[in-house]
């Protein structure tokens, strides 16, 4: 069986959309090439999840127009809760498909830091963006969904940190979704140049109950020599989206990428997070938490691929499944030939809160080099009745005891999130979802 990928959009539609955004010709060409190859490309094949019947291509409209915000005070309450307006100097907010608010401190501007919406970026920083956009990270023609993403891209952000610039305070990006007809083909491109350091947090926030569109999201993180990138997310996309989210990192020599991913979508979701440790002595660390509820189906494939020598990769994933939710957790540590002295470690743990919930943890180590170390641990289980007994024996109610155990189970990842407001939001989302 094949997936229907007939798009309502024609080549002419894409061309005029691109021209309307005054995109340079290289960008228009990427879009058109992607559109042209779309039909022939295969779907991705996330291990253990059959997606042949999933609808990734139908949506009501390509873009919607939404309001801009002139000050942070105008933000909806749900967004205010995750933004510390007094302290957050470096922030970009996208309202559905509309670049809605941007603030970058004078200090960072003076140092050459770029934070801007993706349309402005391809216009004003064309060469820089072209160098990194879907080249070293995610390829346009990787499969049908990456091509679809490139052809229909309708939002996103570009972050560039120049050589030797260390940014202390986190950069925050909020993708606010409050129009149920909106689709999100967002692209985050973050480039950290040599010896730089940055903490970035992006937040997908649906404030409508139900979505009718598509979420096809790509984030590329390019960490150059000796740079350090901490990339945090909290995704809270509404039920009704079919979410494909691909977050990928590439490290040069001595670079470090740390991922802290809070995957709290209510939509069916295919998530791919891959880190290519290309440079010698580079590191990739992934921490991910997931809460599934309702009859959600999700697949989380996390890969760290070791190309360089002395590279260090660690994956830590904790998931909680309730109701009839089901999730597949694929963890892949791959050590290529020549990546001597590398270390690939991973742990996946799934806690199931109901009889009908399903969780699968599949640790995979693929090793083509002898002189390496690797390890994995995986478990799928229920809340331990003896833990509940212990907590209750101190007077704590069963409900509160379960809450403590679940929060405790997710804490190792939640605690890694770099922005207090976002950490608090994640805790609250978890609270709401597991109640």
């Amino acid at each position: 069986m094949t997936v229907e990928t007939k798009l309502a959009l024609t080549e002419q539609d894409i061309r005029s959309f691109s021209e309307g955004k005054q995109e340079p010709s290289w960008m228009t060409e990427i879009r058109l090439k992607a559109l042209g190859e779309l039909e022939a490309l295969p779907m991705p094949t996330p291990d253990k999840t059959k997606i042949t019947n999933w609808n990734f291509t139908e949506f009501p409209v390509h873009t919607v127009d939404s309001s801009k915000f002139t000050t942070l005070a105008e933000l909806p309450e749900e967004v205010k809760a995750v933004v510390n307006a007094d302290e957050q100097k470096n922030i970009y907010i996208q309202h559905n498909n509309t670049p809605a608010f941007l603030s970058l401190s004078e200090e960072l501007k003076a140092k050459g830091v770029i934070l801007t919406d993706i349309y402005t970026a391809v216009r004003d920083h064309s060469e820089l963006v072209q160098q990194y956009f879907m080249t070293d990270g995610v390829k346009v023609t990787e499969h049908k969904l990456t091509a679809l993403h490139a052809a229909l891209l309708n939002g996103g952000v570009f972050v560039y940190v120049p050589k030797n610039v260390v940014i202390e305070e986190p950069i925050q990006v909020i993708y606010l979704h409050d129009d149920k007809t909106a689709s999100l083909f967002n692209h985050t491109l973050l480039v950290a140049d040599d010896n730089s350091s940055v903490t970035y947090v992006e937040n997908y926030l649906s404030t409508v109950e139900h979505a009718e569109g598509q979420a096809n999201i790509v984030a590329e993180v390019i960490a150059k020599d000796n740079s350090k990138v901490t990339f945090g997310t909290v995704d809270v996309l509404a039920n009704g989206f079919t979410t494909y989210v691909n977050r990928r990192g590439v490290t040069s020599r001595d670079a470090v990428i740390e991922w802290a991913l809070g995957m709290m979508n209510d939509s069916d979701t295919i998530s791919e997070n891959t880190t290519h440790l290309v440079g010698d002595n580079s590191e990739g660390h992934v921490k991910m938490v997931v809460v599934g509820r309702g009859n959600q189906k999700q697949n989380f494939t996390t890969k760290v691929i070791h190309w360089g020598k002395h590279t260090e990769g660690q994956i830590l994933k904790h998931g909680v499944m309730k109701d009839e939710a089901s999730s597949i957790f694929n963890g892949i540590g791959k050590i290529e030939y020549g990546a001597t002295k590398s270390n690939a470690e991973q742990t996946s743990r799934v806690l199931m809160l109901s009889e009908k919930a399903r969780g699968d943890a599949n640790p995979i180590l693929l090793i083509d080099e002898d002189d390496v170390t690797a390890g994995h641990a995986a478990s799928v289980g229920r809340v331990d009745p003896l833990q509940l007994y212990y907590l209750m024996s101190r007077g704590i109610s069963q409900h509160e005891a379960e809450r403590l155990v679940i929060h405790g189970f997710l804490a190792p990842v939640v605690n890694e999130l770099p922005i207090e407001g976002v950490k608090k939001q994640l805790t609250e989302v978890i609270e709401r979802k597991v109640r």
Partner: protein
Amino acid sequence: MSTLVIKDLHVAIDGKEILKGVNLTINTNEIHAVMGPNGTGKSTLASAIMGHPKYEVTSGSIELDGEDVLAMEVDERAQAGLFLAMQYPSEITGVTNADFLRSAINSRREEGNEISLMKFIRELDSKMEFLEMDLDMAQRYLNEGFSGGEKKRNEILQLMMLQPKFAILDEIDSGLDIDALKVVSKGINEMRGEGFGSLVITHYQRLLNYITPDHVHVMMQGRVVKSGGPELAQRLEAEGYEWIKEELGIEDETVGQEA
């Protein structure tokens, strides 16, 4: 004064009867020691009083000041004033010792009347110092990676913070070196008084050198077979259990389960 009355208690695990009619009455201001060789049902008694999910009470009763303890959920038993210092405390990742203790204290209080953070920290610090515990342990995850001795101290810390009417101490002395044993005993002795009673389950007389019991009971074959004063513990220390078995005509003192 409060009273805990256990009458003709029969308890089974996986369908096998372990306790075969235990009778005990404990008042506040009393310390009772339950002694006996391995496999005679001592720990089963402790678990059954607290409501361990695996232990099934098949007949008999437990009452606290006339209230039916067996009809209560585990948390209700704790709120009614019972406490069990466990032989094998659970480890709970991600939940700090301090957060856990605060939740436990607040579970006894009305909503809106929670203990203030300052007061809580003051009490916690002073009790940790009393028990010669490293103050960092408040911020460590509950029992995770604690040594055997640290876990036992942590049980006594909870006891002191929660101030129950009755504490059951299930082999609190096992695996403790002499210094830790002294500290743990110091904690229990500090609790002694008008509003507090305790059931100290132990395998060794050694603990009773530090905590002088008012009453001593010996368990064999799932029953209390002999009771007496502190002198009984001393005789057991000197002579072992054989004389009791002879006196009562018991050949195998266990209830047939693996120790």
